[in-house]
C-alpha cells in the first residue's frame, strides 16, 4: 500500500518502480486501487486548484501590512477580521419591533445619503446615537454600518456579518480613493469619522440587508468587494470607542497562543476539545457577579459566556427588593440578615447603608464612589458565613449556638463515656480475648455508632435550640462540629471503645487483626525455617570442605572463555617473607602442572619467530615460559610479548608440535625478581595430581587471497532496458497453475504466477534459465533467451510421479 502511494506520488524509481509496475500489471485489485487513488488525487487537485489572482493576493497582503504597520506604530489596528467573525448577540422578542423601526429609518437615511446632494464634509454623528444625516458627495457611498454604539445600550447589538453596502460601484470608487495615509490620518483623528449608526441599527441592517450567503465576499475574488473592504478599513479606525462586547471578540477570539503560535505541528485531539467549553460556561456566575471588571485576558471566551453576561444586565422588574444591576447577589444575601426580628443594631445599620446606596450600586463603575464602607463588601456571601457576623456582641440574650453548644456536647459525650466505662467492670474486658482495645483511635469517635442509651444526648441538645438556630447549626457539617471539640484525654479513649467492642460480636476489625497476627506468625515460622535451612547448608559446606578435591573440573564449551578470579584462602599470621615464599612455591607448583589437552598450533607456513636453538636460549625460553606461565594467572597481559612459539620440554629439549606433552614433569626455571634465572628442581612427587600446564603459544592468522574471479560482462545500468519475461504456467491438461514458483536461476529472483497462471519478470537480456515448480507437479527447468522488449513463454508442468 505504501509503495502504491509512493508510486502515485512518483516517489519510486529504479527497481522499486519497476516492481510496482509489474505488480500492477499482474494484480487486478491493486490496479483498481491505484486507479481509485489516482482519480481521487486528481479530483481533489482540480477542486482545490483555485487560487486568487494577483490583485486579490495583493489586497490581502496590503491589508495584513496595514495591520502590522498600524500595530507597530501604535495606531489603532484597522479591523478586517471582525467582519468575518460576526458576534451573535441575543435579541429579545420585545426589542424586535423597535429594531425594525430603527432599521427602516436607517435604510431611509442611507439611501438618501447615497442619492442625496453632494456635501463637502460628513456631518458629526448625533449625540443620541440615532442615524444622523450625513450628506456625501455624489457617487460616494455612505460609510458602512458599524456597531460602535456606546456601551450604555441595553441590548448588545450584533456586529454585522457584512457591511450594508447598497451600491457596490459607489463603494468601489470610494475604496479607490482611500489610501493608507488616509487611514492612518483618520485613525489619528477619530472625530472626523463618517457618521455612524447605533448598534441596534447596525444589527438590524446586517440582519435584514445582508445575509451571510448573499453578501458580497469580503475578501473574495470580486473586484467590487475589495474596495468595500478598503472602505471598511477606513471607516473603522476607532476601535476603542466601540462597545466592549463588539471589540472583545477580536481580543478574546485570539486563538490559543500556546497552540497556534507554536511552530511545531500540534496533533489534533479527536473529541476531547469540546468539553473545554463546559467549565467556562460554569464560570459564568463569576462574570455575572463582577460585571464591572470582566476578565479580558481569558483566552477562550467565546460568544456564549458573554451573551450570558449580557442577559444578566437586563433589568428584571419582578425582583422586588433588589437593586437594578446587582439583583442576583443581594437576593442571596438578604435572607441572612432579614429574618432576625431582634436583629442587632449593626445589622440594621448594614441594611440602612444598603438601602441608601442602592442607587449608586446600580452603577458601581463610577470612580467617584463614596469612600464609605462598601456595603457590597459587607454583604459578600463569603463573609456571611463567618462566625463573627453571627456572634455579634450586641446579642447578649442569644448565646452563640454553635460555639456554645459544641463544648457542651463534647463534655457530655466525654462524661457519659466515662461513666459507662466506670460502671462496667474492667477485668471482664481485659479477659476477653477477642477485643483488641488499642486499635481504636481518637479519630474514630464520630464513626462508631453509639449505643441506644447514649444516642439521645446530642439530639437533645440540638433540639433544645431555637428553630432558626437549629437550622443554622444543622446546616453545618457534623464533622466540623467535632473538629471544634477539644481533644479527649488519653485515658478516656479505651473506655469509649470498650462498650463498642463488647456490645457486638467480634467485630470486623478484630477478625482482621487476628488474621494479621496469624499472618505474622506464619511469616515468622517461614523465616525461622529458611534460617535453619541456610545454617544447615552452611554447616554442610564447612564440614565437607576438608574432603573436597583440590581442583574441581567443570567442563566448559570450547568457545566459552570463562574468566573467573582465582580465590586463595590465606591464613592469617605469616610474615611477609613467609608470604613470598609460599607464593613462590605456589607458583612453582602451578608451573609444573600437567596440561589437560594442549592444543598446538598447526604448522605455520608463514615465517614465525625463531625458537631458541642454543641451550642458553632454550633455557631462557623455558624460563620465559615458566615465568609466563606462572604469571599468567597473576598478570595475563604480560604474557603476550614474552611467549615463544612452542613450549619446549625440559627432558627432550626440542619442541614437539602436534603431540600432547608427556606427563613427565618439566624442568622448570623460575625467573628471579632480579631477572637472573634461578633453577629449581621440580620433583614428580610434588605434582602427582596437577595436570595443568600452561604452554604459551602464538596464534597467527593468515589470510590467503585466492585469484580474483573472472569479471562478468557489465550489465546495463538500471532496468529500463531490461526485457520483460512473461509467461504462462499450465499443467498437463492445459489449466493454468496458480502460485507456481518461477525462479530466475542466474538472478535469484522468484515470482509466483497469478490466477491465470501468468507471471512477468524483468531481467537483463541474455540466456536465462528458469526453474518452475508447483505443488503436485514436477519441476521444470527451462532456458530462455531474452532479447527485445518482451519475451513470452509457456511452460507446462507434468504431474509428479
Amino acid at each position, binding site marked *: 500500500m505504501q509503495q502504491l502511494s509512493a508510486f502515485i506520488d512518483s516517489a519510486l524509481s529504479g527497481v522499486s518502480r519497476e516492481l510496482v509496475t509489474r505488480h500492477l500489471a499482474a494484480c487486478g485489485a491493486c490496479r483498481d486501487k491505484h486507479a481509485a487513488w489516482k482519480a481521487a488525487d486528481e479530483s481533489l487537485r482540480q477542486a482545490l486548484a483555485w*487560487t486568487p489572482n494577483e490583485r486579490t493576493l495583493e489586497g490581502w497582503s496590503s491589508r495584513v501590512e496595514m495591520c502590522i504597520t498600524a500595530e507597530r506604530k501604535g495606531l489603532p489596528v484597522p479591523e478586517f477580521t471582525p467582519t468575518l467573525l460576526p458576534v451573535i448577540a441575543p435579541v429579545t422578542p420585545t426589542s424586535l419591533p423597535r429594531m425594525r423601526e430603527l432599521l427602516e429609518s436607517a435604510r431611509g437615511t442611507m439611501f438618501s445619503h447615497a442619492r442625496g446632494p453632494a456635501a463637502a464634509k460628513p456631518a458629526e454623528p448625533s449625540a443620541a446615537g440615532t442615524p444622523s444625516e450625513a450628506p456625501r458627495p455624489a457617487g460616494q457611498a455612505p460609510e458602512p454600518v458599524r456597531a460602535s454604539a456606546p456601551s450604555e445600550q441595553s441590548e448588545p447589538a450584533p456586529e454585522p456579518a457584512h457591511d450594508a453596502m447598497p451600491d457596490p460601484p459607489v463603494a468601489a470608487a470610494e475604496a479607490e480613493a482611500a489610501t493608507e495615509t488616509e487611514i492612518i490620518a483618520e485613525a489619528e483623528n477619530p472625530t472626523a469619522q463618517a457618521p455612524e449608526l447605533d448598534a441596534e441599527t447596525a444589527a438590524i441592517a446586517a440582519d435584514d440587508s445582508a445575509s451571510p450567503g448573499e453578501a458580497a465576499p469580503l475578501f473574495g475574488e470580486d473586484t467590487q468587494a475589495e474596495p468595500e473592504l478598503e472602505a471598511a478599513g477606513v471607516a473603522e479606525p476607532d476601535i476603542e470607542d466601540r462597545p466592549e462586547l463588539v471589540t472583545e471578540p477580536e481580543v478574546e477570539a485570539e486563538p490559543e497562543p500556546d497552540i497556534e503560535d507554536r511552530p511545531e505541528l500540534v496533533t489534533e485531539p479527536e473529541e476531547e476539545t469540546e468539553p473545554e467549553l463546559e467549565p467556562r460556561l460554569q464560570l459564568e456566575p463569576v462574570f455575572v457577579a463582577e460585571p464591572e471588571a470582566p476578565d479580558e485576558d481569558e483566552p477562550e471566551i467565546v460568544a456564549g459566556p458573554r451573551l450570558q453576561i449580557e442577559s444578566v444586565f437586563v433589568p428584571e422588574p419582578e425582583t422586588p427588593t433588589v437593586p437594578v444591576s446587582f439583583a442576583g447577589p443581594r437576593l442571596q444575601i438578604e435572607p441572612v440578615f432579614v429574618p432576625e426580628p431582634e436583629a442587632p443594631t449593626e445589622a440594621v445599620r448594614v441594611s440602612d447603608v444598603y438601602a441608601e446606596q442602592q442607587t449608586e450600586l446600580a452603577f458601581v463603575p463610577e470612580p467617584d464612589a463614596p469612600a464609605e464602607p462598601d456595603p457590597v463588601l459587607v454583604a459578600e456571601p463569603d463573609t456571611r458565613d463567618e462566625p463573627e457576623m453571627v456572634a455579634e456582641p450586641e446579642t447578649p440574650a442569644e448565646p452563640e449556638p454553635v460555639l456554645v453548644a459544641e463544648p457542651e456536647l463534647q463534655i457530655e459525650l466525654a462524661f457519659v463515656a466515662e461513666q459507662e466505662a466506670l460502671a462496667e467492670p474492667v477485668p471482664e474486658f481485659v479477659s476477653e480475648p477477642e477485643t483488641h482495645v488499642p486499635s481504636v483511635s481518637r479519630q474514630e469517635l464520630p464513626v462508631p455508632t453509639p449505643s441506644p442509651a447514649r444516642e439521645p444526648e446530642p439530639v437533645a441538645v440540638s433540639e433544645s435550640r431555637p428553630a432558626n438556630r437549629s437550622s443554622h447549626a444543622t446546616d453545618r457539617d457534623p464533622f466540623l462540629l467535632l473538629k471544634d471539640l477539644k481533644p479527649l484525654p488519653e485515658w478516656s479513649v479505651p473506655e469509649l471503645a470498650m462498650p463498642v467492642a463488647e456490645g457486638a460480636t467480634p467485630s470486623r476489625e478484630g477478625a482482621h487483626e487476628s488474621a494479621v497476627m496469624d499472618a505474622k506468625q506464619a511469616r515468622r515460622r517461614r523465616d525461622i525455617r529458611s534460617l535453619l535451612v541456610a545454617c544447615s547448608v552452611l554447616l554442610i559446606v564447612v564440614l565437607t570442605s576438608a574432603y573436597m578435591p583440590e581442583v574441581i573440573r567443570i567442563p566448559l564449551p570450547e568457545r566459552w572463555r570463562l574468566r573467573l578470579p582465582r580465590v586463595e584462602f590465606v591464613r592469617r599470621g605469616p610474615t611477609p617473607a613467609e608470604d613470598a615464599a609460599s607464593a613462590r612455591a605456589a607458583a612453582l607448583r602451578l608451573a609444573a602442572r600437567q596440561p589437560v589437552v594442549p592444543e598446538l598450533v598447526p604448522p605455520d607456513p608463514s615465517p614465525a619467530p625463531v625458537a631458541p636453538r642454543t641451550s642458553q636460549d632454550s633455557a631462557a625460553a623455558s624460563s620465559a615460559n615458566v615465568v609466563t606461565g606462572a604469571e599468567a594467572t597473576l598478570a595475563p597481559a604480560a604474557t603476550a610479548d614474552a611467549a615463544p612459539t612452542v613450549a619446549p620440554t625440559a627432558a627432550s629439549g626440542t619442541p614437539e608440535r602436534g603431540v600432547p606433552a608427556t606427563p613427565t614433569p618439566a624442568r622448570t626455571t623460575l625467573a628471579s625478581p632480579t631477572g637472573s634465572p634461578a633453577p629449581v628442581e621440580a620433583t614428580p612427587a610434588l605434582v602427582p595430581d596437577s595436570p595443568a600446564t600452561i604452554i604459551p603459544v602464538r596464534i597467527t592468522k593468515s589470510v590467503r587471497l585466492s585469484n580474483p574471479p573472472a569479471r562478468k560482462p557489465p550489465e546495463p545500468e538500471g532496468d529500463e532496458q531490461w526485457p520483460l519475461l512473461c509467461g504462462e504456467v499450465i499443467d498437463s491438461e492445459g489449466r493454468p497453475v496458480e502460485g507456481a514458483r518461477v525462479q530466475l536461476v542466474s538472478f535469484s529472483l522468484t515470482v509466483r504466477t497469478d490466477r491465470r497462471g501468468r507471471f512477468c519478470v524483468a531481467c537483463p537480456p541474455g540466456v536465462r534459465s528458469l526453474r518452475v515448480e508447483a505443488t503436485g507437479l514436477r519441476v521444470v527447468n527451462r532456458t530462455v533467451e531474452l532479447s527485445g522488449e518482451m519475451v513470452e513463454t509457456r511452460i507446462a508442468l507434468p504431474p509428479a510421479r
Partner: protein
Amino acid sequence: MHDPLRRPWTEPGRDPQHVYDAQRGDLAALFTLLREYRRELWSVCFALTLDRTRAERLFHETLLRAAKNLRSVPNGAAFLPWLVRLAANGATSSQRRDPALKDPASSDRTALGTELTAEQSRALHAFAGLAGQDRLLFALAAIERLPYSEIGAITRRENNAVIHELAQVRARLAHGEAA
C-alpha cells in the same frame, strides 16, 4: 500548484537574512517575507479549510501571527515551513473552537466557489472528513506535489513516516469516498 522551477520549500534562500532584519524591526523585510510565500500559504490554507472565506481568514490570521511571533523562526531555516506549520496550527485551533468546521457538509461547491462534478464532490467530502494533519500531508503531497523529503521537513516527520501516513490517508480517502 507546485512549480518545479521554483526553489524547494525547505531551501532557506535569503530567508534567514530577511528574518533577521524583520526581527530587528525592518518592516520591509517582513513584508518581503510575507509576500514571497503568500501563494503557497494560500494553497495550504485552502486545503486546510476547504472554504474560501475560512481560508482567507486563516491566511490573514497566519500572516498576522507570523509577524507577531517572528522571533520563534528557527535560525537559518527556511521561512515557509514555519509559516505552514503556523497555518496548520491555526486551522487546528479554529476547528477546536468551532467543531462545526470539521463538518464535511460545510465543504460544498459554494464554499469552494467552483462547480464540482459528482466525483469531485465525493472526493472533497471524503477529504473534509480527514483530520487537519492528514489534510496538510495530502495537500503537500498530492496537490503541491512536494517530494517526501520536503514534506518530512515541513511536518517534521521521517520520510518513512510520511510514506506510511500518506498511504493511510489515501486509504481513508478511498474508504470515505466509498462510504
